[in-house]
């Protein structure tokens, strides 16, 4: 009978059980907070890569990473790499694939709470440099031989005061794609436009042929960032100029510094974008290109192959540098950028973390990376001759391996500028509420606000500008 099996608990028993449970939970929490998030051993020695040999086997390290979102196949490669690393060293890497929106903030928040992962995926430039200034990342040259770091070409934006804080992983530079079939239908040649006048002429003809000249989605913001990277850079002589704009040493209200926003306005008013640009996100905007509806689109290198695949063949797609309108030394140059990894300054197992990063870059792993995801590895050990896809081959020669390539200057903007100026300006222009000049005024005001709110970071930025201008 159910009644006979019922355990009777009076109030006193209940309170006893509840008290014991709470005590157990409290003690457990206390124990956890007294210990480190990962098993600890002797204090970390951060002087030489050889120190890895001193670390006891069987350590567990936390790693937060990102990438599967833009390059399907990376997660499989990562899991395989972790399994092989464990087989080789006995150390376990516990990976967490992060959401795009929290890649930066989660690491900084965890670091502030002294609970950072040992290894962290890092976007380039300011997206990890603020963590450097806050002391959350360690320089890598004390853990990994400098020639190995340089062999992954993490780009100049990964260095501060001469020290590298990031290892390169795979290429993720912004570029533009064009659809050769649409160009042909519009009566255009196979070559993409190279100047602004040519671009306007091409857009006009593509529109007349019944296609969207340029597809884009602006609702979530990154398209505005990409365009700024392509456009603002054209009127700068070096990345240091961009930093000087962001800290107010140069003035956004000068026409050449807001010209790129005026160009967006010009394109929009001419009807050269998809009409729903302000109400769709970045990727749906790009997918209009893959669906064969648009002549051109802005993209990043890891996504190029998937767009070509949507169109049926890489032969139908070409890569292009954004047409020139500016007069700076960076005008007309391809942009090179990459994803990367760094090591938390709070890690108790920095040497093992470094060992894992080095393992990721062993030639066999680099080959496997290429095979698993078709991203272009940044490692000098990668043999580009094995790239048979014509589009990826063009990207390798024109962007990744091009010594003329320049850094992606949008990676230098403070986050406040991202949220209050870049994000706002491009959307207001597309909504018809602002001109390029008004966008420049807003950029100026946001810069002033950022300087007032972050007086302690201005000095760091200034130093970074010196580094990059040198």
């Amino acid at each position: 009978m159910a009644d006979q099996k019922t355990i009777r608990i009076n109030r006193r028993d209940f309170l006893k059980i509840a008290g014991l449970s709470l005590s157990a939970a409290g003690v457990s929490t206390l124990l956890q907070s007294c210990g480190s998030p990962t098993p600890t051993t002797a204090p970390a020695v951060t002087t030489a890569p050889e120190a890895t040999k001193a670390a006891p086997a069987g350590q567990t390290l936390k790693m937060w990473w990102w990438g599967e979102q833009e390059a399907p196949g990376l997660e499989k490669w990562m899991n395989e790499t972790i399994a092989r690393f464990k087989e080789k060293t006995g150390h376990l890497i516990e990976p967490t694939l992060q959401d795009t929106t929290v890649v930066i903030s989660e690491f900084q928040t965890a670091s502030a709470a002294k609970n950072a992962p040992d290894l962290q995926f890092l976007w380039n430039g300011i997206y990890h440099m603020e963590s450097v200034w806050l002391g959350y990342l360690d320089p890598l040259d004390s853990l990994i031989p400098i020639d190995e770091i340089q062999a992954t070409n993490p780009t100049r934006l990964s260095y501060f005061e001469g020290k590298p804080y990031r290892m390169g992983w795979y290429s993720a530079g912004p570029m533009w794609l064009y659809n050769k079939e649409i160009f042909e239908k519009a009566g255009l040649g196979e070559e993409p436009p190279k100047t602004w006048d040519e671009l306007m002429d091409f857009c006009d003809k593509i529109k007349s042929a019944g296609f969207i000249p340029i597809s884009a989605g602006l609702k979530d913001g990154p398209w505005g960032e990409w365009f700024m990277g392509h456009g603002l850079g054209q009127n700068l002589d070096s990345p240091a100029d961009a930093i000087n704009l962001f800290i107010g040493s140069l003035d956004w209200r000068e026409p050449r510094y807001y010209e790129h926003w005026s160009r967006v306005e010009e394109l929009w008013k001419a009807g050269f974008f998809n009409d729903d640009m302000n109400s769709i996100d970045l990727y749906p905007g790009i997918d209009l290109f893959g669906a064969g509806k648009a002549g051109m689109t802005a993209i990043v290198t890891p996504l190029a192959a998937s767009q070509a695949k949507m169109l049926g063949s890489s032969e139908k797609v070409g890569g292009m540098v954004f047409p020139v309108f500016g007069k700076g030394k960076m005008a007309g140059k391809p942009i090179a950028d990459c994803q990367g990894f760094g090591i938390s300054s709070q890690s108790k197992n920095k040497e093992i973390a470094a060992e894992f990063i080095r393992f990721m870059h062993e030639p066999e792993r680099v080959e496997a990376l290429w095979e698993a995801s078709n991203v272009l590895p940044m490692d000098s050990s990668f043999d580009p001759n094995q790239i048979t896809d014509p589009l990826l081959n063009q990207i390798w020669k024109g962007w990744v391996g091009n010594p003329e390539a320049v850094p992606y200057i949008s990676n230098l903007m403070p986050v406040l500028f991202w949220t209050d100026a870049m994000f706002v300006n491009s959307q207001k222009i597309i909504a018809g509420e602002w001109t390029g000049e008004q966008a420049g005024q807003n950029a100026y005001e946001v810069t002033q606000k950022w300087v007032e709110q972050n007086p302690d970071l201005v000095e760091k930025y200034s130093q970074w500008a010196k580094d990059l201008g040198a």
Partner: protein
Amino acid sequence: MLRTNRITPYLYLAPMVLLLVFTFGYPLVAIANFSTRRIRGISGPFIGLENYRQIFKDEVFRQAVEHNLILLIAVPIMLIISIILAVVLFERIRGWQFFRSLLFVPYVLAIPVVGVVFSNILQLNGVQNQILRSLGLERFALDWIGNPQITLYSVMAVIIWREVGFGIVLFLARLQSINEELIDAAKVDGADWGQRLWFVIIPQLRSVIEFYVVISIITMLAWVFSYIYTISRGGPGNATIVMELYIYNFAFRNQLPGIASAVAAILFVVTLILMFPLFRFRSETAMEEMG
């Protein structure tokens, strides 16, 4: 008669009071402390009221406050819709149980799901506009979430669509416990539907209405982040930025928790100020009811 020491009840209360002080008091003190510092990581130098000065001179903050206040328009709309639908269901129209469940379904859905679905439906070339165009109503096919002039109202409509379900269930539950003889008597006296609603039903719903209004005001001031983030992300061009998103941007994106804390403190005080008259009104009503 059982006699206890005067201090005994307080001793019994003490653990719970301590728990409340810790869980509610500590965060408030921490926020007040953070709001006077330039926090980097978990601490930073004392800068007095500088964070507050920064906030009050920030045009984006002003916009955020304005948008929260505009969203308060949704409160009376939700209240009226909820009461009318609850009364209609209460009158046992055919299939009322089905409609009750149907109207409550939106409230069961997770807000991010609602946000993502509506952000697709409301695109310029989304389902809603496709239907409008197919009906020959092209001029009503607006850029619902791409036009800064109307996006906040589009988000407000989504909030109303989802939150009304809670009101309906709340009012229906209260209606089912009221004295139906009063309604029958009003009918006998010749009162029409509107008169019965206004003079008989609504007075009996008074306490629930107050509760719903308070909850809805709090929702509009401090509980709309998920809608905004998933539908418009504060855009286009800050057209839908609200205080919560402003706090989020400073706390987690700009890494300036000091400013975020200052806004949180302001939001807390403003909410209290708005709530105070309502609680006072409630207290007066309770006194009246007690005679």
